[in-house]
């Protein structure tokens, strides 16, 4: 997995990538991904999130990446302990998915894009 990520073209920053995909829509999904520095796990989480969103929410999502190393004070707001944590701010209710989103099925269940089996 780590190898495949290395072969990708170098992303400047996760936030920049996220910004590129900002597509306003009627029911936009507000997602916030908390990471701590650009660790392989954070990059994996972002890549997985991006893939899931492209597949299931094309053009209707908005990803904000919060790097706690840079903004440690933001950790308290969403009660972040584990890294990476994905927070679904909208639509309500608030959901949190902890982990690198490797398991797509569970991620979809967690985001309530698919009912739990």
């Amino acid at each position: 997995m780590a190898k495949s990520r290395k072969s990708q073209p170098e992303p400047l920053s996760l936030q920049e990538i996220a910004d590129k995909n900002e597509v306003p829509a009627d029911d936009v999904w507000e997602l916030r991904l908390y990471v701590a520095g650009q660790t392989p796990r954070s990059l994996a989480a972002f890549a997985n999130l991006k893939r899931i969103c492209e597949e299931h929410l094309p053009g209707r999502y908005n990803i904000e990446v919060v790097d706690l190393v840079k903004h440690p004070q933001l950790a308290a707001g969403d009660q972040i302990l584990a890294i990476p944590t994905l927070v679904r701010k909208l639509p309500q209710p608030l959901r949190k998915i902890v982990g690198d989103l490797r398991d797509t099925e569970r991620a979809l269940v967690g985001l309530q894009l698919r009912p739990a089996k």
Partner: protein
Amino acid sequence: MIKAVKKDNKERRSLPKAPTGIQGLDEITAGGFPRGRPTLICGSAGAGKTLLAMEFMIRGATEYNEPGVFMAFEETASELAQNVRSLGFDLDELIKEKKVIVDFVRIERSEIDETGDYDLEGLFIRLGAAIDAIGAKRVVLDTIENLFAGLQNQGILRAELRRLFRWLKDKGMTAVITAERGDGVLTRNGLEEYVSDCVILLDHRVTDQVSTRRLRIVKYRGTAHGINEYPFLIDEDGFSVLPVTSLGLQHEVSDERISSGVPRLDTMLGGEGFYRGTTILVSGTAGTGKTSLAAHFVDAACRRGERCLYFSFEESPGQLMRNMRSIGLNLEQWSKKNLLRFHSSRATFYGLEMHLAVIHRVVENFQPKIVVVDPVGSLIQAGNMRDAHTMLIRLIDFLKQRGVTAFLTNLSSGGEALERTNVEISSIVDTWLFTRDIELNGERNRALYVLKSRGMAHSNQLREFLLTPKGVDLLDVYVGPEGVLTGSSRLSQETREKAAALVRQQEADRRERERARKREALEARIAALRKEFEVEEHEAETSEDQNAVREELMASDREAMARSRKADVTNGTSKKRRE
């Protein structure tokens, strides 16, 4: 040489400690928690874990200039602030002064899903940011085990906790981690595996419907520590641990003597009264005047301007003052001048530990010179005999260390050996006065004697102990051929003796008069004899004269006769004579 240096180094390198500032806890941990290392506090629900951790942090921030971070996994900052406000800590103020940060970590299992790998870097960052923000030296994690409920992946969690404690050590944080006690194990999730430097167990036990909190140091690596279970208290001033016995017998001694308030009793005690700072026990059967003696002692102390604290377990202050008025003691005046303070409570009102703690607290606040506990025996009602005994030893040690003179009274119940106390403290008191009643001829009278008094030549005499409207008075008892007599027997005996003495006196007077009469008679006789003799002498003298005259007369007669009769014969002679 090298060995010696090594040893010296070893001693000097003894574990650095962070004082908790909690009364008693620093004593039994020999200085506090291990500095720069985590300490685990475990105990069941309501044992006082959070409070201990909180007080450790607050005292660190206020007394030792060590700011602290409190990471709460159970209660919010405002809840915590409210909880500790009732114990006299103003958490909000400390937060404002940037001495303390309280960070509430909420974990809602229902809104968290897990997929894939993660770590607890978020927690680390939060904690790190808080530590850096105020330059914290102390960290509390209360109760970090809640993570186990919030996150599913135990493997990750355990690895991360291990990393967290390592990280805290590296940062030099003196950390306190609280954990719920598990079934048969110290903590539910085996946290003691990770925190192995110092483990403290809190316990809350109910025996005979009286609850006692206890604390034990299960483990404290690299240092000497108290190993007993120590009772502790949570009251309006926070947490306090009470060492079961004081850690040494090193109190200062005083040569000063203080009056017992009864002059005659002072005379019995080497003429000067008790030593200051000693423990005095008055024991005796019911109604023998123990409380009255205590009141006299208190009155004398107040007269000297010393503060007295009176713990009464049987009488209310009002009742006590009224009763003492009947023997001429006005204790109200001292109470009004704030020299005398009463603390009345039923012994059964709370447990022994609470009593001891209350006494500690009141003594600390009032700073008395004299403490009266009346009576100590009733404390047994608040616990069992053994506990009451250890509690009293601790109390006496505590008072001695502060140089406070303790005056204890104890009721000896009839039917058992009188010269023993039901709480077996006789060996640790310095002066033991014994009051008893002597039953004779249908009445009871009080008697007092000094059973022992360390360090002074005390009287060995039994004294009759009188309660008069002017106070306590001690009288010599009548000791004579008829035994020890007190009360009206003594009075009647005295009267009898007086009568007998009178008779003896009269007898003596009579004899004296007799003698005088005899002497007079004798002298009269002597005078008569002398007179008689004088008469005789006179007569003798007169007859002598007469004889002489007669002789002369006879001689001249003879001459005349001879001349007339034989003139010739006697011519020559007569001639010669004539020539």
